């Protein structure tokens, strides 16, 4: 991936840079256009910091009309555009291009409406994920999807990436919690999909937009469902001598009809790193540590937590603690939440992967990872959203050691291939971006990818929005439109007709 190939910059655009900057200043007056190298430096990468590129120019519009005019301007002149929210993408979804306008949506930072009776919040796309919860929590409400970057990531970016979090199995991903959006097409046309009502009419364009990684349109308003906070939450901290037992415990909990609010697993290296960092009393003599959180009405949580505890015992757990206070529950989580920085303490650098697997394949995948770890000579620590099968291996490497980054990336790619091989997928919540772009063919054949690109063609036929992301090769729409027709016999003619 270090040899990442991005689309060839368009010379005509680079040549006209001064003119484009001046025109952008007319569309967005004031301080909304940044063209100095120094000013643009802060936008040169997103959360995937291995890749950096200065954009053509940075534009920070404030109104929908400005977004529409910028896109129409670029559309008419064949100029590429890369949309960006808060820039927390871990897959390079907002990586700038040398010849593209970087359209930064962070000034769209207002909550437009809070409607408790209909249980929705209408927000501009630059509002942070946590900002929505903060706006309604005094009434006991919250917004359910909680990606770990929630303090910084924007709700518009959440729509683009279909962000998840630790509560997905019970509460769904972004796609299940967004009711409507307003968006601007590359042509500058403004459309609305859905709203405060359920099920958008016609084709499910909202479903296609969610998780489309900024390749189909620019979101300018989001309507999300808010929920009443669960009455209570309690957690169990359970240690197992083997990851197989931990995995079986997860299967048995779900098999018993229990859907926990959160269910997280850590392997031995992750447990040790976390405990060394936050000292919350994690057992150090176990191979797998499971945190199971049950939330809901008091009577239900008290009832179910006993059943989970029994299931853990039946699966041979060696330690099991039930939280008796909110402080204790949060302490159980403290290590898990600090897992990434904790791993950062034991290794100069780490590379976070994001595959999803069928839960039952966990032992096989962990074993495969141990082999790969030996092959590449790099350590790996695992945190696992056990409830929904989303695995986050953290590959330990040292960027200052020549060749280490390449090795880490090759290791990561092999892990993702393994995920696909056991029936899983390349990315559970971080997105394809540039990071997994060239692995797409591990999961999809040409025909699958072509049909996805045809969706792109319906929205943006000239491939001006966020090119170089998601698809290994973006075929021209005219080429994809050609039909290869084979005239033949009437199929299975022996069958009945009328």
């Amino acid at each position, binding site marked *: 991936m270090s040899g990442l190939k991005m689309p060839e910059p368009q010379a005509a655009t680079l040549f006209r840079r001064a003119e484009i900057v001046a025109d952008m200043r007319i569309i967005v007056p004031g301080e909304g256009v940044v063209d100095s190298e120094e000013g643009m430096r802060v936008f040169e990468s997103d959360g995937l910091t291995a890749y950096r590129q200065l954009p053509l120019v940075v534009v920070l519009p404030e109104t929908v009309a400005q977004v529409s005019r910028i896109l129409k301007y670029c559309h008419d002149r064949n100029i590429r555009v890369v949309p960006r929210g808060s820039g927390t993408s871990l897959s390079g979804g907002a990586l700038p291009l040398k010849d593209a306008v970087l359209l930064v949506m962070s000034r769209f930072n207002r909550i437009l409406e809070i409607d408790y009776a209909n249980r929705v919040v209408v927000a501009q796309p630059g509002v942070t994920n946590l900002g929505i919860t903060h706006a309604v929590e005094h009434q006991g409400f919250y917004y359910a999807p909680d990606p770990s970057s929630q303090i910084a990531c924007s709700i518009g970016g959440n729509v683009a990436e279909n962000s998840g979090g630790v509560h997905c199995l019970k509460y*769904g991903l972004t796609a299940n919690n967004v009711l409507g959006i307003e968006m601007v097409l590359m042509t500058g046309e403004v459309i609305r999909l859905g709203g405060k009502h359920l099920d958008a009419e016609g084709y499910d364009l909202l479903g296609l937009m969610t998780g489309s990684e900024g390749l189909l349109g620019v979101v300018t308003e989001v309507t999300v469902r808010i929920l009443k906070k669960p009455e209570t939450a309690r957690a169990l901290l359970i240690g197992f001598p083997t990851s197989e037992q931990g995995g079986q415990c997860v299967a048995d909990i779900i098999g018993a009809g229990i859907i926990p609010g959160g269910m997280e697993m850590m392997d031995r290296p992750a447990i040790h790193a976390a405990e060394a960092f936050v000292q919350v009393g994690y057992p150090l003599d176990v191979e797998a540590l499971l945190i199971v959180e049950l939330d809901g009405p008091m009577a239900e949580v008290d009832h179910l937590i006993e059943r989970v505890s029994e299931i853990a015992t039946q699966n041979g757990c060696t330690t099991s603690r039930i939280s008796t206070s909110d402080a204790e529950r949060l302490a159980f989580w403290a290590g898990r939440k600090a897992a990434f920085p904790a791993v950062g303490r034991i290794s100069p650098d780490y590379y976070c992967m994001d595959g*999803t697997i069928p839960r039952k394949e966990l032992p096989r995948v962990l074993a495969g990872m141990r082999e790969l770890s030996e092959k590449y000579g790099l350590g790996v620590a695992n945190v696992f959203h056990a409830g929904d099968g989303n695995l986050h291996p953290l590959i330990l490497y040292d960027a200052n050691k020549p060749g280490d980054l390449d090795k880490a990336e090759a290791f990561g790619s092999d892990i993702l291939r393994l995920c696909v091989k056991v029936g899983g997928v390349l990315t559970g919540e971080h997105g394809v971006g540039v990071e997994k772009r060239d692995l797409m063919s591990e999961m999809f054949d040409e025909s699958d990818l072509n049909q996805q690109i045809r969706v*792109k063609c319906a929205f943006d036929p000239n491939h001006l929005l966020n090119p170089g992301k998601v698809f290994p090769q973006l075929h021209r729409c005219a080429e994809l439109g050609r039909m290869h027709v084979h005239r033949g016999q009437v199929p299975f003619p022996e069958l009945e007709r009328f």
Partner: protein
Amino acid sequence: MAETQLFTPTTPEEVLETVRWAVAEETPLEIVGQRSKRSIGRPVEANHLLDLSKLTGITLYEPEELVLSARAGTPISEIEALLAANNQQFAFEPMDYGPLLGTEAGRGTIGGTLNANLSGPRRLKAGAARDHILGISAVSGRGETFKSGGRVVKNVTGYDLSKGLAGSWGTLSVVTDVTFKVLPAPETEKTLLLNGLDDHQAAEAMAEAMGSSAEVSGAAHLPEGVIAKFLDRALVGGPKTALRIEGVAPSVEYRVDHLTRLLRSHGVGDVLEAEQSCALWREIRDCHPFCDGTPSPVWRVSVAPMMGPRLVDTFRRAAGANAYYDWQGGLIWMRMESDPEAEVLRKLITHFGGGHATLVRAPESLRRQVDVFHPQPAPLAALSARLKEQFDPRNILNPGRMIQPASPTT
């Protein structure tokens, strides 16, 4: 004109072969399963029938993994029976259109469930079919096979074409295989009834219930005009507002108590035990009051919950209609006395903050004249047309079902 043909493929390969033939002949296909929803939409302008009812079989079911895959023509009844035997279910509670449309109950296929994006009363808490589909295989109108998604819940790899096909009524692709998320069925349920509320008071009470921590999984209001149709006339004494609580027994008890206290000022009445509760919600789900054996126009209207009663009130100043509410007031089932009054209704939906109205039942002649699906603003309609073009450039899949074709097909 070519002889009219019926194709009943039993494998995805035969589906592909059939679509390729139709592409080559430039002749449209009407795609059907068990034909339980065939009369929804504009009449399809096609000579030939692609019948998927023999493309059947559950190909994967792993209860602990909460996942089930099946061929598109598999009867929904067969799948629901298997899930029930494992104490699981489709949480989106797919409705059965059969009785409303004058066909048998209990029919329909899993492919139709996705293509119609079915849901039920639990929609407001658990989502619709679109929220539970994990992956598909399909044949596009180009005569090409493609797949999307996978078998895991958390997946953002590439565009979500599975969701894109939800609610497309067979006009984008012929789905051959589906993979759905399944969930544990609740151990038990109860329904709290509120007595004597008018539509507006009911909307307030339902909003309060849905905004509580009681985790209500169904909120419907049954006005005076329909109440006798439910539970074989067992609900008497004026309108009823129904709130469903599901879960493990101690939790259900606890939450019914909680709700009863919370809604004391809203005319709290009886509590229905599991069996009656289950029967009531099935009738609410399947539009039982309007299953009258007639083709009189029935609308399915989706608006913001608090707007439901206001919309109905205003509409009644223009035309007569019988109506009841699901989804906290946001889903209105309306039976018209005669004319569907599409224009009046759709203007009011815009006036009351947006939403959509689908004419789910009407005689064929009416379905030719009136837009069955909610018309879209020009840029959105153009985008939808471009999407259709990308999946089905020759317009051979269910032409005319969702929108009137721009030019007449041959």
